[in-house]
């Protein structure tokens, strides 16, 4: 079980959190301007690296805040966390 450092509450067990997929995939500013293929990419295509990965988590059984975590998907090592809006380290 991961130990996730919530930027607001500190380290907590993974069971207090919900996973939110890849981070830094912003909602397109003008969806109508996108082609079907571009929109489909936004909807359905995400990275799946073996190694460091920036992902979103929400502390659903705690402060209920969303934030980003960098985690190594191969080792499960949590490399750090940062608030929404902060640049990826």
């Amino acid at each position: 079980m991961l130990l996730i450092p919530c930027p607001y509450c500190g380290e907590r067990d993974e069971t207090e959190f919900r996973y939110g997929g890849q981070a830094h995939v912003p909602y397109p500013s003008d969806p109508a301007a996108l082609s079907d293929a571009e929109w489909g990419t936004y909807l359905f295509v995400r990275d799946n690296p073996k190694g460091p990965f920036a992902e979103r988590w929400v502390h659903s059984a705690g402060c209920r805040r969303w934030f980003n975590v960098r985690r190594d998907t191969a080792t499960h090592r949590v490399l750090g966390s940062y608030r929404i809006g902060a640049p990826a380290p």
Partner: protein
Amino acid sequence: MTRVDGFGRVDRRAPVAFTFDGAPLTGFRGDTLASALLAGGVDVVGTSIHRGRPRGISAAGAEEPNGLVQVELGGGSEPMLRATEVELFDGLVARGLPGRGALDPTPDLARYDRVYAHCDVLVIGGGPAGLAAAYAASATGARVILAESAPELWPRAQGERGPVRHAAERLAIAAETRVLLRTTAIGAYDAGYVVLAERRTDHHAGEPPPGVSRERLWHVRARRIVLATGAHERPVAFAGNDLPGVMLAGSAREYLDRFGVLVGSRAVVLTAGDSGHDAAAVLAAAGLEIATVADARAGDVVCAADGERRVTAAIVRDAAGAERALPCDLLLLSGGWSPVVHLLSQAQGTVLWDAGAGGFVPDVLPEGWHLAGAVTGVYDHDACLAQGAAAGAEAAAAGSPNGAAAARPAEPATMLWAVPPPAGRDWDEAYVDQQRDATVADVRRAAAAGLRSPEHVKRFTTIGTANDQGRTSGVLTLGVMAELLETPIAALGPTTFRPPFAPVSFALLAGPDRGALSDPVRTTTIHPWHVAHGAVFEDVGQWKRPWFYPRKGEDLDAAVLRECAAARESVAMMDASTLGKIDVQGPDAITFLNRLYTGDFSTLKPGRCRYGLLCTADGMVFDDGVTMRLSEDRFLVTTTTGNAAKVLDWFEEWLQTEWPELRVHCTSVTEQWATVAIAGPRSRDVVGALAPGLDVSREGFGFMHIREATVAGLPARVCRVSFSGELAYEVNVPAWHGLALWEAVWDAGQPYGITPYGTETMHVLRAEKGYVIVGQDTDGTVTPQDLGLGWMVAQDKGDFVGRRSHARADSRRPGRKQLVGLLPTERLPEGAQLVLDAGAAVPVPMAGFVTSSYDSAALGRPFALALLEDGRALEGTTVHVPLEDRTPTAEVVGTVLVDPEGTRRDG
């Protein structure tokens, strides 16, 4: 088999009576069932799973592959326990098993609980190295947990003193240190997370003390972990090696040291290293006659064992190949040692083959892990103590692990896996996995079939899949394979280790989360009335909602027809408190809601409400509900009962991650309000009587308007919304007034025969009007347009979540399933498939399916809603509904079957 004076730590003044296979026997306090059986001369404990071979005790701990017993406990029995791990108590009743047991069908009434614990250092294993580590860590003031599977810490031999004994005694009283006995680490996970199973009462005679759980699951999060799990001795595969009387050499020594039991009178010892000699020397000093020690390093081996129900002779083969039979009643094996690396491997550590240690030893450690003792392939007592002390100190200081491999022998160990059988004997008698009755012949068959991977051989032979998880057979199988394939064992590598390390009961994993505690039950403040009036409940999410209110002799169908008729002809009432309610407020609330809902709320005036749809970004309907605008910047959003938490999460996700600049706050107020829906032509009379100050007239209180009013003397918010098509009011009061309001409505409605109705009637009434239920008439692949709700999708307000997807080619293609009404020849089962041509060739193309189906009191006939390909274009045609034994037909019609003009809505 005898007890030897001067050996063992059992209490000889405390005899313990027990029963095995119906025979009364006696042991001593401190015995295990295995040691007492050995002392009592019981050779055969059970029979093997496939071949029915007699099997006895062959080891002293968790690695025992035989010796499986079923033990009677208070109120039931427990199968598949190892006799080596069952502590003896007065009155214990056990029986041997034929390789498998049977679960006791009586309910398990014992308590199981769990504890979450945190520590600086978790030491797994209370042998010399683990004790030294825990002692060193504890001495620094660190918070330490020491987990040991056995009922006592090392040393277990009588009279042994010295630094280890001292450490054990000090740890028992040290501050910030917790020693958990009878506690096995069953799983190791990320970031220092280890799960321990503690057995708390099974070693007691009689009923457990009140309030004490039978077993406890410890969830431990440790900054550092010291793995001191030791090593298991390996047997050797030769013909007849499964006979009772064949035992691991170290285990025979342990029976002497711990229990004072000499497990035979004349022994042949087969060893690949010094361990067999060491055990022989200790046992000989206690009176065991050693016929010979066959040392594989000199080329001497045992190639077969003779005997029927116990070994009677060993066939010893010397380096020149000469064989001779040596009479004996004990055959002791030491084929080397396998470090217990399971937990390390579970936590993603890696192992490698070490030729000097003759086993797989830890290589790359998980972060925060330290090692001590035999698990590193170091088998010297003093070296283990030194390693433990160093590891404990390093762990407490959060330092880096030292080089644990330093003390391993440089010289490659002599390996001894399988000994070819003598003439007249067969590989099929040379057991590798005794619990699975798998032999060297099975491994040879797997190799002959072309299998090269240990994972494949494991699955082909089932070796290592029994409840001992291959503790004595796993590495042995690799050794046999390496010889067969002429491959270095290092290249084969061990099979993957997964939790649990030892068998664990589902009851322990469930802990207290059983029965009524398995999931929270939510009830409304009006619930007691529903119970008192005989409601039948259904579960909606965690809520208990009245399903219907049967009168004497009524079934569901009869009750629902009556409840529906009351709502259409007079007046009926429902507890709608479970609907999700979210208070959305802030200067940007209108912007926020317009970005999520398909409709345009900017035209909604304060004091009015409107039905809305939520879509996910892929354009599919996600939830629906009525939104009230309470003031310019404050809204009350309602959601479906089961989706309330999901919708709030959805709101928060968009607010926090995409639109943090919006000044909006969302709060769940579901449980702050109680809601009574009053529906039917006489509802105006009922509400008017309860709220004399409220203008309830058709002109004074329009559809989809909201009024703050006093209803039955209570502060209330009244809405003119209808989920039935009838004139209807929803009265909302603070939750604690819910029951008072309900009872007042009930009393005021008596002149009109007011009828309480449940969710089933609600479903029928709404379906008659074509109102969808998200999750019943939709399944995540349905757009608003598919539902015929395209009019709810604003075209001119700018972007909202889901809009772009409505323009995708797939969302606009012909052939999408659309919501339609059906008038069938009989009531259809929900989920029934629809086909256009009943005579079409198989496989008949499926054109759609029934989503909702009821009998209608208003229509006097059955009807249904369905999703049907190009359904709206098929109105007026007939579809076929193939059922198991018949194929009724149905006419495709519009979705609004009752009052299509909407004249009843305003009374």
